[in-house]
């Protein structure tokens, strides 16, 4: 039983839950920043419970630093909102650290920049004034013993505690005290254990949980990667950064402050994310050494990927459970074409998924129904339903649509016979009514999977702020179209690509305030995140008003790489597209924060896997604009099935412009072109692409078009068009070029779904090779 267990799923659960919990936290911290006590107080019970669960879950996964960090946040939030106004900025930073740790829990280390950023950098004396003044001299009287959750902290908080919190006067700087820095980190709560937990070797200590259940399954906690090793090491390194900075500002010292222990002096002033067991600074001093030692041990641990590690873009992957259950079937279809995986196999997969405990996942996020004391305002009742169950229904709705269409066709075909017995009119009317209902059902069903893009966008304002601050830049984030709906799995999966684009914009696009002023721009840059529905697609833009694309540098670089001939000048759109190719970077001075980890080529392939596209263009505000187009829903999209070289293939109907009889094929360089209505279209032969034996010359051209590009996929015949559930290809298959997923044909066989955009790119490459060869 545990053999079938997928560790990645555990982390997926963890991240999913963490995101919900962080959304609550973001709302509360936003209210704190606005000094909106009522807003911050609303839903506090739910928030605290959420953080408590997050803490517990982090503990179960052995993510000790994260656990401590969340604990610190939880402890702070037990104070009345008014007491926290002054430290909202610092709390945002801590929340960013939590967010990063959550997002990268269980992921292979693909983004060291998160560790470098050290988001839990509590305010330092040298910080920009805006954060300084807010945080420097303030004390979070950390009064409540976390061991006693039943005691309402407000009552225990001495009246004086609020006053120092509002005191923004900077405290005198103190010489470097690693001890103070260490104390500033929540790890200081149990210094010995926390320090040990940074060390790979110490992970299996009795304090750290083990997830393994049987010898057959890998032991999460026994592997350093699973714990400190994932980029969630951003958390330990966060406290590390503080220690390294060499100057422990008063702001970083832990405030302990039980009434008798309340220190009014600079010594204890500051923001404590540590839980408040009264303890003198001096007592923490000897532990500094072990902290530094732990620091040294960390990088090694960070290098490898977690065993159950799953890349974030796969994390939200919905139908993963089902499709992963039969990689063999799909795999064979790649090599040999369609394989009769059979509907039963698919349904078995569903059943398997259904047997999982998600029965439990149906739960109401809303509180208040039971009339508990903490029940607050009215909330919409929410039901959590596992994707597997939803997909089963969506699939059945698809079948229903197919059956209804079949009935409609039957009525049309038997029109004369029905007429003869006087039933034609009645039959037609009933079939039409049925079709309308089926269509409406399909729409409603699809909506079940969509969420507002706000849940993704909402993460970026604080994140971009962090990134900019770390580089002495200023960025203001403007969100537009947050209520635009997107498939939940897509929404989850685009977080990483968007994160990369945002970081890219801040690192490379946005200039320093001085540079901006010199260029006559306001010192703070603007970063727009926009979403808008475009029919069956959602368009998402990331635009900045920074320095924009440097066409000349890009052309130079493309020539250097031999992608463009010395005399060749590609159109701007094509040139801009080079940024999505591996190995293309026009920046010599790759910054500390970017240029590592995933590149724009990964952004593109991630987006392609979602059956979307990404392009870059010169924005209207002088900067660069990245445009993503993503399908509104990944489930049940109209799919055209065709036969090519004796194999059944599928393509999203939205990609297909028309299908027409093919004329004669001409050759240009290494590429073939065919004339369709006076337009010379590049020819795509699936047989060549997948190495199949082509039989007779195909007779049909299926014209696909994306933006300015178009191509003709050669096919023998069209089979049908109907709504189908798209599943990602199993990870084991990698991402073969030109294929973006799999679906089932009418007979339940697994069929590859062609990626029109990628196929066109393949042809451009081919054409270019040919042109150069000539």
């Amino acid at each position, binding site marked *: 039983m545990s053999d079938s267990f997928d560790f990645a799923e555990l982390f997926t659960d963890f991240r999913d*839950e963490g995101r919900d919990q962080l959304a609550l936290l973001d709302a509360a911290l936003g209210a704190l920043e606005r000094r909106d006590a009522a807003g911050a107080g609303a839903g506090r019970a739910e928030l605290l419970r959420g953080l408590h669960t997050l803490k517990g879950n982090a503990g*179960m996964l052995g993510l000790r630093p994260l656990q401590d960090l969340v604990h610190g946040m939880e402890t702070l939030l037990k104070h009345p909102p008014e007491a926290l106004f002054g430290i909202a900025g610092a709390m945002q930073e801590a929340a960013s650290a939590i967010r990063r740790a959550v997002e990268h829990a269980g992921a292979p280390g693909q983004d060291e920049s998160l560790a470098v950023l050290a988001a839990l950098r509590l305010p330092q004396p040298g910080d920009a004034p805006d954060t300084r003044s807010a945080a420097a001299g303030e004390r979070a009287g950390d009064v409540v013993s976390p061991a*006693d959750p039943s005691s309402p902290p407000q009552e225990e908080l001495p009246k004086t505690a609020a006053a120092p919190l509002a005191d923004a006067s900077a405290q005198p700087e103190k010489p470097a005290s690693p001890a103070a820095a260490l104390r500033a980190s929540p790890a200081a709560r149990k210094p010995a254990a926390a320090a040990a937990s940074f060390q790979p070797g110490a992970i299996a200590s009795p304090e750290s949980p083990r*997830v393994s259940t049987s010898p057959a399954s890998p032991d999460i906690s026994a592997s350093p990667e699973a714990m400190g090793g994932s980029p969630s090491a951003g958390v330990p390194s966060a406290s590390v950064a503080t220690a390294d900075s060499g100057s422990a500002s008063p702001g970083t010292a832990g405030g302990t402050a039980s009434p008798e222990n309340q220190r009014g002096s600079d010594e204890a002033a500051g923001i404590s994310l540590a839980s408040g067991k009264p303890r003198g600074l001096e007592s923490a001093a000897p532990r500094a050494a072990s902290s530094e030692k732990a620091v040294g041990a960390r990088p090694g641990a960070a290098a490898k990927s977690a065993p159950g590690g799953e890349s974030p873009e796969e994390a939200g992957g919905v139908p993963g459970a089902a499709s992963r259950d039969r990689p063999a079937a799909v795999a064979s279809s790649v090599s040999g074409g369609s394989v009769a995986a059979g509907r039963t196999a698919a349904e078995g997969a569903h059943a398997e998924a259904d047997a999982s*405990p998600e029965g439990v996942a149906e*739960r109401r996020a809303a509180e208040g129904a039971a009339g508990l004391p903490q029940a607050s305002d009215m909330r919409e009742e929410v039901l959590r339903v596992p994707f597997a169950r939803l997909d089963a229904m969506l699939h059945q709705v698809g079948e229903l649509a197919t059956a209804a269409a079949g009935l409609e066709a039957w009525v049309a075909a038997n029109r004369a016979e029905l007429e003869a017995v006087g039933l034609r009119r009645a039959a037609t009317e009933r079939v039409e009514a049925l079709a309308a209902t089926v269509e409406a059902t399909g729409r409603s069903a699809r909506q079940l999977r969509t969420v507002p893009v706000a849940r993704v966008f909402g993460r970026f304002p604080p994140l971009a702020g962090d990134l900019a601050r770390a580089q002495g830049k200023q960025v203001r984030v403007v969100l537009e179209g947050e209520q635009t709906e997107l498939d939940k799995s897509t929404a989850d999966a685009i977080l990483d690509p968007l994160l990369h684009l945002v970081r890219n914009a801040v690192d490379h696009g946005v200039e320093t305030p001085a540079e901006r002023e010199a260029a006559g721009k306001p010192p703070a840059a603007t970063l727009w995140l926009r979403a808008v529905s475009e029919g069956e697609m959602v368009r998402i833009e990331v635009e900045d008003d920074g320095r924009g694309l440097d066409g000349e540098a890009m052309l130079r670089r493309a020539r250097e790489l031999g992608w463009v001939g010395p005399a060749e000048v590609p159109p701007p759109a094509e040139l801009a597209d080079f940024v999505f190719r591996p190995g293309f970077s026009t920046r010599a001075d790759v910054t500390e924060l970017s240029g590592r980890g995933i590149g724009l080529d990964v952004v593109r392939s991630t987006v392609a896997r979602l059956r979307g596209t990404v392009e870059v263009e010169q924005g209207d505000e002088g900067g660069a604009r990245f445009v993503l187009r993503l399908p509104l829903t990944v489930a049940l999209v109209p799919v055209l099935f065709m036969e090519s070289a004796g194999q059944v293939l599928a393509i999203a109907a939205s990609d297909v412009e028309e299908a027409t009889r093919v004329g004669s094929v001409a050759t240009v360089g290494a590429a073939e072109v065919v004339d369709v209505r006076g337009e010379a279209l590049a020819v795509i032969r699936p047989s060549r692409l997948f190495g199949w034996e082509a039989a007779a010359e195909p007779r049909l051209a299926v014209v696909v078009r994306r933006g300015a590009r178009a191509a003709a996929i050669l096919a023998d015949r069209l089979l049908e068009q109907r709504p189908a559930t798209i599943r990602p290809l199993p990870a084991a298959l990698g991402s073969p070029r030109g294929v973006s997923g799999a679906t089932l044909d009418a007979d339940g066989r697994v069929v590859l779904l062609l990626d029109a955009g990628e196929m066109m790119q393949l042809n451009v490459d081919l054409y270019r090779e040919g042109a150069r060869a000539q």
Partner: protein
Amino acid sequence: MPSERKKLLVVEDSPMMCRMYRIVLAPAYDLVFAADGSEGLDAAAREDGLDLLVVDVNMPRMDGLEFIRRLRGELGMTEVPVLVCSTEAAEGDRALAESAGANGFLPKPWRPEQLKAAVHEQLGEAP
């Protein structure tokens, strides 16, 4: 005992925790899940032959302690053993759980063998 598997009700709101319970316990027991105290009461009333309840404390709508009180009181299920698993690991929490009617207390994070041992103990099984 191939056929006579014991049946456990797990009252836990976190999907991730549910998955962990399933990983550790499903090989040996039949599991029923409920997402909060209120659903837990429904499940406890509905399911026949529950051998053990594993209950989280921190849950929406109705927390674990209230759940146990009502289980013992309103539902009159005074015999079935209840194991509380809580992140609140202090002795006070153990005492609170016991006074609410819990038979055992397991602090989180637990290791699989600790959970198994606690379940064995409550079920009176040999480890």
